[in-house]
């Protein structure tokens, strides 16, 4: 074996073979990556593509991969809610491209609602979970294990299992169709994970820094705010991102705790558009694009925090 290899390398075949193998391997990796990338973002690219076409073009068979008449009319209509000329009704003319679509046109107010609810959930979640996780990680107190296990246990309750009681509680509190109802519910569903995550994060931090601050006469809270929080900022960013994105995506409770545009969030409005067979696909695609841009940007901006924190929690 070894002798053969030596002979081959003497003849210069070894180098040639290895090079070819490296090249083939490269080609294979690129090929697989290309297919994978296509599968991952193909659907998103198509919905973006569709948002620049009118319905008459969207219904052509086969579809126009590159729009023949690219237009910003859908965006103008969804954002300003004033129909641009393409959507003007011309009597006697039958053509696609001016279907009305109330649900899609509600995208902007719904986005506003979603942002208010998600931001509030994020802020409250960060404060509550950092406080609790710090106590769970650093302090010895009676009932700690019990309280922590209780928090983890609540994570296991499937949302649909508490749908009816949630409705009753929110109704009795007089909070149906309000932001506060959604914020409270989303807090309850995001806290178990964020508390677990932050506790684990604090466990990784060496306690030396705080010990020094405590010796200097800081109270626990001062020490948490002034010394610990700056150090765990990446973990807090990941926690906040998680809470925001969860609240932004939630659908089940949003759909039956809200009734009007006073509190309807993006998923509720867009779902109503999606299951409507008579919807304007052009306008609805535009609404979907507007709705998925914020969380995608959010994920890309916080990418490093999210992946490094996940690595920390899972990679050990």
């Amino acid at each position, binding site marked *: 074996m070894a002798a053969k290899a030596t002979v081959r390398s003497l003849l210069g075949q070894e180098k040639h073979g290895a090079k070819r193998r490296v090249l083939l391997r490269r080609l294979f990796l690129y090929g697989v990556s290309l297919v994978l990338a296509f599968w991952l973002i193909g659907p998103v690219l198509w919905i973006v593509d569709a948002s620049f076409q009118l319905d008459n073009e969207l219904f052509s*068979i086969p579809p126009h991969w590159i729009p023949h008449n690219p237009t910003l009319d859908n965006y103008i209509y969804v954002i300003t809610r004033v129909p641009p000329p393409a959507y003007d009704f011309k009597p006697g003319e039958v053509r696609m491209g001016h279907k009305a679509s109330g649900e899609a046109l509600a995208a902007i107010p719904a986005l506003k609602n979603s942002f208010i609810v998600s931001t509030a959930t994020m802020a409250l979640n960060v404060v509550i979970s950092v406080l609790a996780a710090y106590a769970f990680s650093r302090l010895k107190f009676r009932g700690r294990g019990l309280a922590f296990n209780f928090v983890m246990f609540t994570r296991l309750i499937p949302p649909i299992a508490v749908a009816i009681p949630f409705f009753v509680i929110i109704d009795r509190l007089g909070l149906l169709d309000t932001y506060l109802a959604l914020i409270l519910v989303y807090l309850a569903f995001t806290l178990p994970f964020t508390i677990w995550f932050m506790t684990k994060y604090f466990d990784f931090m060496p306690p030396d820094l705080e010990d020094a601050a405590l010796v200097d006469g800081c109270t626990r809270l001062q020490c948490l705010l002034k010394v610990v929080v700056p150090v765990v900022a990446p973990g807090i960013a990941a926690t906040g991102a998680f809470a925001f994105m969860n609240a932004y995506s939630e659908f089940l409770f949003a759909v039956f705790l809200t009734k009007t545009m006073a509190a309807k969030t993006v998923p509720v409005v867009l779902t109503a558009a999606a299951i409507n067979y008579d919807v304007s696909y052009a306008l609805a695609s535009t609404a979907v694009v507007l709705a998925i841009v914020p969380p995608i940007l959010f994920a890309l901006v916080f990418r490093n925090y999210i992946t490094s924190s996940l690595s920390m929690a899972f990679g050990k």
Partner: protein
Amino acid sequence: MAVTSKKRVWLFSATAAGRRHIYAYLSILPALLVLILFTVYPVLYNLNLAFHKNVLTAPGQHPFVGMRNFTELAKNPGLLRSFQTTAEFTVVTVLFTIGLGILIALLLNEQFFGAKALQVIILIPWAIPVVMAGIIWRWMFAGNVGVVNGLLYSLGFIDKYYSFFGNPVTAKAALVIARVWKDVPLAAILLLATLQVIPPELYDAAKIDGCGAWAAFRFITFPFLRPTLTVLLILQTLIGLITFDLVYVMTGGGPADATTLVAWYTYTEIFTHLNLGRGAALAFIVALITLVLAVFYFMALRSEEMYA
């Protein structure tokens, strides 16, 4: 007696231990309040509801009916079918999510230009809310504007558009594809994070010992991945039990009841049949299954950690 008074003392005293306890309880109080109001109370309320008759079309009459809501459910063939569908759906999505997750993580762990780009791209499906992923895939597979149809047509595989949601098999497949598309990124990211802590010397040593690629995977990579795989298995199984939004936007449970997963079945029981009692009983059963599965998995995970 002495012990009790001592306990009282530390709670209200100005000693360090007392202050620590007060601080600790105040810290976890907000979290506990929210969770008690929105989990303990609802679960108890739900349980009470499950043992009473409560149909919204007959208000004001809520007699105690014992186990009747449960026995009625047990006799319902639709429910049994939905459990079967859920089991199928869960097994298939778990296999694909984890299988593809491993392959993608191995790919991203390679050193080449595309890996960096892919690590960014893969976050996109993860970031898109489930409902919106559902909407996108619903339109991808649609029989009128569907781009999957468009693609197959352009490539000459079909000569007229096919109704994917009209056929039980393709409707299920569409649901699985959307679920896997949405869930694979997280699996791949977690597995990649785990792959990156494997010391490369292990592979060098294996190579010297004459191990092939498969043996290296089987005896080095896989044991490192196992705890993460167990976590993913738990997450993905629970996702199978709670998948509701995708069904809502993509298939509405159809055609017939081909894609009626148990969460969707519960929803229709509550919101279309307005039978709160039976809905609550069903919700209780689903919660119980989740709990049993979770306990089972956690035990598996615990033993995993002992081996590690």
